[in-house]
């Protein structure tokens, strides 16, 4: 299940990094906001859970667009690092505001489906299967979205924004849509896990590091790489914990370091761009 969530967050992150060349440190906070928006939509507004997912998608996509228009579009002119620092600041403000607004307590949704199924002696809760199915649907939707005119424009801008401009592609439109889509993916991820994991103000920060790991393994700018890496990292994490206990994460980082040494671009991507270029 966790692989599916990593896939959505990492896809959003790598999309923004690839197209706008913004290292969005606030990405995890959109995941957290998505979870809280979905929980609020169900518990406070009484909306059905599928509608709550859509609400979370729209809310986080909108906030992503606001972040672009309000901040990112101005700071990108000042360079890669300045923009990155701005996203750190934005993420911190969002995390603290969430702590103050939603409180420091956890929030939960009742399970959407109950029961378990047994596959080859392994018991899998149905709730987690719903999350996996949801992640697959969203990834499939993203796949088709990238084939639309705006999707192709995003890929073209990611390839070479100057040439893309010469082809009549409006970069500003591409960029804000990219921010909205990238952040919306995180929001959906948060909404999907809400019935199976308790939400908290710190959940965005903790998962972001793992999402970065996924991006590194999959390859920056590669969404298919992110998808592949998400499931590889998710499964490796489970096995590493089983065999190495709390040192499991260390083992994963060592494996990733070895991978990056031999394949700097990850499984399916390119090496990281030199900042500012």
């Amino acid at each position, binding site marked *: 299940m966790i692989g599916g969530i990593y896939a959505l967050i990492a896809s959003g992150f790598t999309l923004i990094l690839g197209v706008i060349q913004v290292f969005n440190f606030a990405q995890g906070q959109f995941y957290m906001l998505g979870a809280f928006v979905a929980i609020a939509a169900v518990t406070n507004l009484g909306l059905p859970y599928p509608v709550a997912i859509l609400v979370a998608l729209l809310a986080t996509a909108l906030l992503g667009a606001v972040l672009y228009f309000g901040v990112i579009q101005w700071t990108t002119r000042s360079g890669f690092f300045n923009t990155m620092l701005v996203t750190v600041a934005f993420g911190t403000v969002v995390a603290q505001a969430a702590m103050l607004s939603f409180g420091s307590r956890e929030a939960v949704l009742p399970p959407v489906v109950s029961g378990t199924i047994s596959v080859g002696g392994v018991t899998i809760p149905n709730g987690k299967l719903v999350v996996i199915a949801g992640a697959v649907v969203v990834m499939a939707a993203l796949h088709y979205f990238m084939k639309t005119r705006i999707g192709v424009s995003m890929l073209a801008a990611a390839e070479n924004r100057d040439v893309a401009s010469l082809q009549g592609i409006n970069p500003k439109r591409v960029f804000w849509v990219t921010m909205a889509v990238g952040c919306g993916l995180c929001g959906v991820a948060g909404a999907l896990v809400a019935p199976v994991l308790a939400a908290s103000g710190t959940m965005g920060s903790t998962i972001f590091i793992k999402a970065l790991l996924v991006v590194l393994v999959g390859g920056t700018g590669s969404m298919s790489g992110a998808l592949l890496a998400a499931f590889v990292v998710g499964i490796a994490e489970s096995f590493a914990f089983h065999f190495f206990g*709390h040192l*499991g994460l260390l083992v994963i980082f060592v494996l990733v370091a070895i991978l990056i040494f031999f394949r700097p671009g990850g499984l399916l991507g390119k090496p990281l761009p030199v900042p500012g270029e």
Partner: protein
Amino acid sequence: MSKRYWIALVLALILGLGVFAVACGEDEPTDTTAAGGTDTTAAAEPTETLKIGAMVSLSTPQGLEMQKWLTMFAKIKNEAGGWDIGGTKYKVDYIVYDCGIADATTARSAYEKAILQDGIKYIVGTWTDVPGVAVTITEPNQVLWMGTDFSPDTLNPEFKYTIRAQCLSFALGAAYNMQKYYVDEGAKTSVIVDTDTLQAQVGNANWAKAGELAGLKELEPITFPNDTTDFAPVATKVKSLNPDLVELAYVSNSDHLVNIIRALKDVGYDKFIYPGNIDPRLLENIITQVGKEYVEGWTGMYYDPRGIQEDPDMLALIDRYQQEYGEFRQEGIYWIGPWFLFEDAVNATQSTDVDTITSYLKSMDHGVNTICGYTQLFARPDVGIMDTIDSAPGHYMFEVVDGQMVAKRSVTVQDQHLVSIKAMGLVEPFQAYWDEYGKPTFPDEESLFDFTDL
């Protein structure tokens, strides 16, 4: 930049600040000082000011709650016209500093600001402040430090101004009471599940010793990184060990707690779970995830004193908290214990002199009541400290009956102190200490453990 973008930006900023102000306005009747301090004082007549500092992480539930209580205590003193100490009325200025979460750099900066810039002479109440760093600043500057720690960093016979309150050195009576309960229910084996922090390791090692004293066979603990999101691997490991009891003693993140319990149910674990310290709302969230039947009969530590606490002064403070902040929350009440010790010391000595107050605390022959129960300071002869510097706090137990937390009874200071000594193998040095200085006296409460059990 065009005019419309400027307008949009200004509107967004106003909107953001408005949301922030509304969010803050519910819980924070405070003014913010420069560089991280939050300073609360009501208008008061006294001319003298008593500045007290607290070091907490304002990104944690415990820290935020401590801030509410401590600033409320100052407000109460000030509303009464100030704190009368030795014939002088003092306005109380309780400044809560954000020291980060176990971040040595941030903690050092906060301590330096408090002590070197703001002139704080008493640090009363801490949470995640890196005590090993704190004492490097408080001791040379002769600042009283009353903070939370159970590491060896603050156990130094040469330290003159360090009091460990609230501490968990003598908190194993609570573990023992809980473990005894589950042993009586038929549990024979147990596994502790917790985050892989140093403090948790120390705490869990002691917890396991209490478990063995209570008659449990403690299996190898299972620890997980603090940034764990999916607890299925943890639960699978628990299931493979199949213990009679899973002890979640020190899992402080409530979302972790809910997720672990949910994962345990998902893998089919259906024996006893000790959930640590939870409150009714957390229990409600757990029940939302796993159902009422799964939690029936659980017992655990309970910070909420309502239903057990009989001290009218403490009940009045709880009422005042609810007037100030609405719903009662328990996260901070254990860790604000130092305030009551400090208040007792100042009232008894009628002095604001750090040395006088510290001397009183280091020779205390009695405890004080706190919101979370009776708290008493004890010596640490096992490390050569004959002064009373380490606290044993009282506690409460609950039992889950029909999906509700029902207050069960107190865990006494006597149990806390004596079980801890026995479980940690410290009987010999304490016996020698008692032979020389006399045995401590405890409040007259029913305990499970006595001097004869040592």
